[in-house]
C-alpha cells in the first residue's frame, strides 16, 4: 500500500473519530425534568413564571448545546434552534440548564418558541437537525398519577410513593427523572416528582452515603478485606498468567532463533541464566563498596571522567544553521 493511501486512510479515520466525538458529546444531554403549568414556581429573569424544560449533561465533560434544536412536534424537529456563540450554552459536567417554554424566543437564548401545553411530546435534536438525542412523551389527561420521591438512606436507595395527583397537567407539579439522566424506577426512569428542582439535581445523594452504607453492612471491615484482597489478587494473577505465557513464548522464540543460528540450546540457557546472578553480585558489591568506602566523585578530589555523548538533533546542526553563500 502506498504512503498516500495510508495518509488518506489515517485522515479519514481521524475525521470520522472527530465527528463521532462531537456527536458523542451532544448525545450526552438528556431531557431531565419539565413543568407544564407554573403559577407558583421558578421565575425567569423578567420575573415571569412559565413552563420550563430542564436539560442535564450526563457526561464528565463540558457540552456545548449551541446549535441543537428543541421541538414539541415530531414533524418539525427544527422548531427552535438554540443559538450558537452564547457562553451559557456550554453546559458543565453533570450540570443542568433550564429552557423557558413561553413561546417568547426574543427574550433570549433560553426562551423557546412554543409552550408545553401545545402537545404532550418533547424532542432534543442534535445540531445536524436530524438525530434525536432524547425524547419525552409525558402523561396527560385524567389520572390518578402517583407522585414519587427517591429516598437515599443507609439501607440503600429506594423509590417511594408520596400520594397521587388526579390528572395532568396540574399546577406546579413537575415530571422528571427520579435519578438525574438515568432510567431507574418509575416509568422508564420518569415520574411525577414530589418537588420541582429546576437547575438542580432531582435527587440529592449524601456524599458520605456510600461510605456510611458500607459501614452498616460491614462494621468490622471483613467484607472489605475479602473483596478488596480478592480483586488485588485477581489483578496480579491475571498479570502472572499473561506474563508467564509471554515469558514462555519469549524463551521458545529465543531457542528457535539460536537453533537457526546454530548455537546449542544449553549454551543459550547458560547465556540466559548467568547474568541475573552476576548482576546481583556486582550490584551488591558496588553498593557495599560505596557504603564502606564512602566514595565520592567530588568531595575527595577524585576526578571522574564520563563519556559525554551528544545525540544528533537538527536543531543544533550546522548544516541547517549556516546560510548558503549566494551564487553570483
Amino acid at each position: 500500500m502506498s504512503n498516500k493511501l495510508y495518509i488518506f486512510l489515517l485522515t479519514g479515520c481521524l475525521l470520522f473519530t472527530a465527528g463521532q466525538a462531537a456527536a458523542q458529546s451532544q448525545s450526552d444531554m438528556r431531557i431531565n425534568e419539565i413543568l407544564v403549568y407554573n403559577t407558583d414556581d421558578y421565575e425567569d429573569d423578567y420575573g415571569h413564571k412559565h413552563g420550563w424544560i430542564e436539560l442535564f449533561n450526563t457526561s464528565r465533560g463540558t457540552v456545548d448545546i449551541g446549535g441543537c434544536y428543541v421541538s414539541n412536534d415530531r414533524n418539525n424537529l427544527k422548531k427552535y434552534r438554540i443559538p450558537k456563540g452564547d457562553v451559557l450554552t456550554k453546559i458543565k459536567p453533570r450540570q443542568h440548564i433550564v429552557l423557558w417554554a413561553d413561546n417568547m424566543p426574543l427574550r433570549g437564548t433560553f426562551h423557546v418558541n412554543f409552550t408545553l401545553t401545545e402537545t404532550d411530546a418533547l424532542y432534543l435534536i442534535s445540531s445536524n437537525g436530524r438525530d434525536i438525542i432524547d425524547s419525552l412523551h409525558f402523561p396527560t389527561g385524567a389520572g390518578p398519577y402517583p407522585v414519587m420521591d427517591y429516598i437515599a438512606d443507609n439501607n440503600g436507595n429506594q423509590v417511594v410513593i408520596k400520594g397521587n395527583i388526579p390528572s395532568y397537567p396540574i399546577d406546579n407539579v413537575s415530571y422528571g427523572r427520579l435519578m438525574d439522566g438515568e432510567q431507574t424506577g418509575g416509568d422508564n426512569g420518569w415520574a411525577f416528582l414530589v418537588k420541582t428542582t429546576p437547575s438542580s439535581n432531582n435527587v440529592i445523594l449524601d456524599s458520605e452515603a456510600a461510605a456510611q452504607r458500607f459501614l452498616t453492612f460491614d462494621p468490622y471491615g471483613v467484607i472489605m478485606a475479602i473483596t478488596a484482597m480478592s480483586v488485588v489478587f485477581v489483578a496480579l494473577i491475571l498479570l502472572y498468567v499473561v506474563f508467564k505465557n509471554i515469558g514462555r513464548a519469549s524463551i521458545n522464540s529465543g531457542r528457535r532463533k539460536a537453533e537457526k543460528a546454530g548455537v546449542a540450546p544449553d549454551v543459550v540457557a547458560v547465556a540466559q541464566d548467568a547474568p541475573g546472578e552476576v548482576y546481583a553480585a556486582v550490584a551488591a558489591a558496588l553498593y557495599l563498596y560505596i557504603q564502606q568506602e564512602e566514595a565520592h566523585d567530588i568531595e575527595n578530589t577524585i576526578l571522574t571522567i564520563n563519556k559525554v555523548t551528544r545525540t544528533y538533533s537538527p536543531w543544533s546542526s550546522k548544516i541547517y544553521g549556516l546560510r548558503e553563500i549566494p551564487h553570483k
Partner: protein
Amino acid sequence: MENQGFISFLWDNLQQFFGYTAFASFTFGHMIMIIVGLIFLYLAITKDWEPMLLVPIGFGIIIGNIPFLEGLSIGVYEEGSVMNILYQGVRLGFYPPLIFLGIGAMTDFSALISNPKLMLIGAAAQFGIFGAYGLALFFGFPANEAGAIGIIGGADGPTAIFLSGRLAPDLLGAIAVSAYSYMALVPVIQPPIMRWFTTKKERLIRMKPPRVVSQREKIFFPIVGFLLTAFLVPSGIPLLGMLFFGNLLKECGVTRRLAETARGPLIDIVTILIGITVGASTQADKFLQWNSIKIFILGALSFMIATTAGVLFVKFFNLFLKEGNKINPLIGNAGVSAVPDSARVSNNVGLEYDKTNYLLMHAMGPNVAGVIGSAVAAGILLGFLS
C-alpha cells in the same frame, strides 16, 4: 512631656510590632511540631533515612509551625497564599500521579517479568491495608477515614496522599507524615518480623537466578499491565496509568529524553513540592490531636501486618512449589511497596545468614508488584468509599 509622648508612641509601636512576630502567638503545640521537624531533619541528614523525603517534609513542618497573624495570605490553608497554591497539588491530588510517572520511568520490572509468580507476594502484602482498615474502624474512625488510614499499610507515600486527599482531606497531613515516617523506618520495623516468622532453613533458601528478559517483554509489560489492571479497577487509572506510562517511556527505547525528564527533573520537582507542602500542612492546631496519635499507631500496625502477610504468604506458597523452585520467605517483606528499601532489607537480612545469597534481584519482583498492588488497592477503596 513631649519626650514622654515619644516614648509612649515608640512603646506602642514596639508592642504592635511584637504582636506581629511569631513570638506573640507561639504555643507549646508549635514548639512540639518544630521539634518533630528538627528530628526529621536529624534522621535524614545524620542517619540518611529517606533524606529525599524527610528533608523537605521536616523543613515543611518547621515552615508550617511558625505562628503568624491570619489574614496576611501566608499559611498553607489561607486561600491565595503561595504555600496554598503549591498545596493544591496535594489537595487536588495531581502530585501523586506525577510522582508515579517518575517511579514508572525509573523502575525496572525485569525481576517481576522473569519470575511472574512473585507478583502474588505483592498482592498478599496488601493485606496490611485492609487489616489497618478494620483496626481503624475498631478505633472509631468512619469508613472513609478508615480507608485513608489503611492505605498507609501500602507503604506508598504518593498513593497515601492521593487517597487521603479524596477520602479524608482533614487527615491528610497526619496520614502522609505517618506513611513517610514508617517508610523511613522500614529497616527497623521489618527485620524482627522477618526473623520471627521464618526458620533458619528457610532463610537459607537459594532462588534460581532470574532469566534475561527481552526488550519486547519489557515493552509489553506496561501496556498489558495497564490494560489488565485498569479495566479491573478504573478508579486506579490516575496512578496506574502514570506508573505504566512512565515505564513505557523507559522501556520503549525511543523516548529516552522523556524518560530521563520523568525520572529526573520532573520527579525531583514534584518531590520537593509534595514534601514541603505536606510538611507545612501539619500546623500544630490541626495536627496535634488525639486522632493523629491513633493514626501513627495504626500506621505502625499496618506496616507490621503487611510484612507478616508477605512473609507468611511465601511460606504458604512454598507448600505448593517443588524443591529447587522454592522462594526464600525473606523476600516476603518486600511485597510492601517501599521501593527499594524493603528489597534492600530482604537482601541485608539474607546476607546475615548466608554471605553469598544475594536476594536483592529476587526481592525487587514483589517490591514493584507491591507498587502495582497498592495502586489497585487504592482504586478499590476509592471505588467503594467515595
